């Protein structure tokens, strides 16, 4: 609006009713990125991660290995079936092969996060490349990519992963994450493709084209920044899905066996009938940690949704 550019001049002529002009955002704290859900969710996740990292420094993680501690101790303040009480040497108790639960959780939590992050990042990377190519180049490239996504998106990833893990037996964190990523690229690809298509028609990209910017320039300088809230939301959704898949595989006993993971701990507990022996700390603590983690991720995702779709923001008031 040319009106707005005349502000100062016009204000001088109309000094009587000097209105304070604060158009657009009302102040710097009024950014949509500072919404309650996003902050709470990020806070939960950060707290879990920080505990995992700091915990390693203050607690002896060697205790996470078999036979390092007494067997089947309950957490402090509880009593197990055999009448033993928890001791401070193992505040969260131990399981039936003598691993200290605190050490297991300290090592396992970041591992589970790591799998989610690697898988989501890899899936996202593939999604960005394919989505941009599909939306921007179009033609047969678009056709092939769309077909590939449509064909693979409905396959229950867990089933294929079960087959792969069952064959591989020994699997490490990174391999597992990459396997999961093979089923995590379709959604970001579709999302980015549709966003690119709608953006391609928008005024500013056309202007960039007319002014002779190269395709690569347009893609990364003009379009990518506008996709950031979507990419972020897609990344979180991808990480949630990846952790979900990882925990699923781990609880089936198909996860990495050399390093502790939260799902793997639950698997051990179930196979040792911890439920019937009322060793709730064995499966319960990793369950609660995972649940917290997923609540955090959900909150972050809801918060990002509100950023990408302002209508939701209004409605949540």
């Amino acid at each position: 609006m040319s009106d707005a550019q005349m502000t100062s001049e016009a204000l001088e002529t109309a000094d009587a009713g000097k209105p304070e002009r604060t158009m657009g955002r009302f102040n710097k704290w009024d950014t949509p990125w500072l919404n309650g859900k996003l902050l709470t969710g990020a806070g939960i996740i950060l707290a879990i991660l920080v505990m995992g990292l700091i915990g390693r420094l203050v607690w002896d993680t060697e205790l996470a290995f078999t036979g390092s501690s007494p067997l089947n101790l309950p957490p402090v303040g509880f009593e197990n079936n055999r009448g033993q009480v928890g001791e401070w040497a193992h505040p969260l108790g131990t399981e039936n092969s003598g691993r200290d639960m605190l050490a297991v959780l300290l090592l396992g939590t970041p591992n589970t996060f790591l799998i989610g992050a690697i898988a989501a990042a890899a899936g996202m990377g593939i999604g960005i490349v394919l989505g941009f190519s599909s939306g921007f180049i179009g033609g047969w490239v678009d056709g092939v990519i769309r077909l590939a996504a449509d064909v693979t998106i409905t396959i229950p990833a867990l089933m294929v992963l079960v087959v792969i893990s069952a064959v591989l037996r020994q699997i490490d964190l990174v391999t597992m994450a990459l396997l999961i990523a093979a089923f995590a690229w379709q959604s970001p690809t579709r999302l980015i493709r549709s966003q690119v298509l709608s953006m391609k028609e928008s005024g500013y990209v056309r202007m960039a084209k007319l002014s002779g910017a190269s395709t690569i320039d347009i893609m990364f300088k003009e379009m990518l920044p506008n996709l950031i809230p979507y990419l972020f939301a897609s990344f979180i959704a991808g990480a949630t899905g990846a952790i979900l898949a990882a925990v699923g595989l781990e609880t089936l006993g198909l996860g990495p066996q050399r390093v502790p993971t939260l799902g793997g701990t639950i698997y051990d507990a179930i196979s040792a009938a911890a439920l019937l022996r009322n060793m709730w700390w064995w499966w319960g603590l990793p369950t609660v940690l995972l649940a917290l983690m997923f609540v955090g991720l959900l909150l972050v995702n809801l918060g990002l949704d509100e950023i990408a779709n302002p209508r939701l923001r209004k409605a949540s008031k």
Partner: protein
Amino acid sequence: MGRIPAGYLFRRLGIFVLTIWLAATVIWIIPRLAPGDPISAMVGRMAASAGFIENADAIIEGWQERFGLNEPLFNQYLRYLWGCLRFDFGYSLASFPTQVSTLIGFALPWTIGLLLLAVTITFIFGNFVGAIMVWSHTPRIIKALIPFGLVFTSIPTILAALLLLYVFAFLLNAFPMRGAYALGVEPGLSWDFIWTVIYHGTLPALAIILVSFGYWALGMRGMMITVEGEDYIQLAKAKGLKPFHILYRYMVRNAILPQITAFALALGTLVSGQILVEYIFGYPGMGKLIYDAIITQDFAVIQGTSYIVILLTAIAVLIVDLAYPFIDPRISLKGGR
């Protein structure tokens, strides 16, 4: 409405066939990339557990012949694909000489039954909750309570299953820990049997419903908010239609359409979740079959069950996609997505 455009139909069928072929191929290739073959591993394990097996080499050879493992790879592949088409996955390695298809035949009805029930309830209930979250005539107290119900949404099905099992089966003893029916009851069409099936199925179904209805509720909420801002809702209000009529005929009717597409895409995840629930509850469906096969390293069963689960999911998605033109009148003109 009421007509599936030919282009859409052919593309959709093509994708279906490709999906199945791709999945079957991947399942076939993977074990062949791994060192050693499943048969030798299997016999090796048998030998190890029995101490010594006479003519172990001869047994291995005999089996290899029976499974056609001596033929050229391509022939093996074709034979395998042909088997997939006829649901013939050979013999179970762990419970020889039972056919894999027989095992699946026992497990499948339980899985389909539980899945249909749980997923239908989830979808209807979730969308209902999402709709009334947005509707302006919903009592405030209900709107305030709903978010608490969504807490479970974010948790993986398997964790909800564990918690339910612990609280309701172990601590409260209100529901059975394992199985699909009481052992003393003769399976059949008797009230006793139906009752025991419902009794055993409640917790597994609840686990699925609890964790996934929130997903649909949140999706529906988003769609309802979008639809609420549409001009036709404003006109419907100006027309003085009854609020409930506007809710279901104008808002829900339009907001549910993208949810149905999302439903097709989420089926894979739902099935995976169910597989894990079955394993936790020892429910005699595909999930338990797969878990047992993993424990006994019965590769033939893993392969067969994976294939069937993928096939069923693809069929379900196909049905939803083909039903879509009947639900959204706009699609018959557009053709394709």
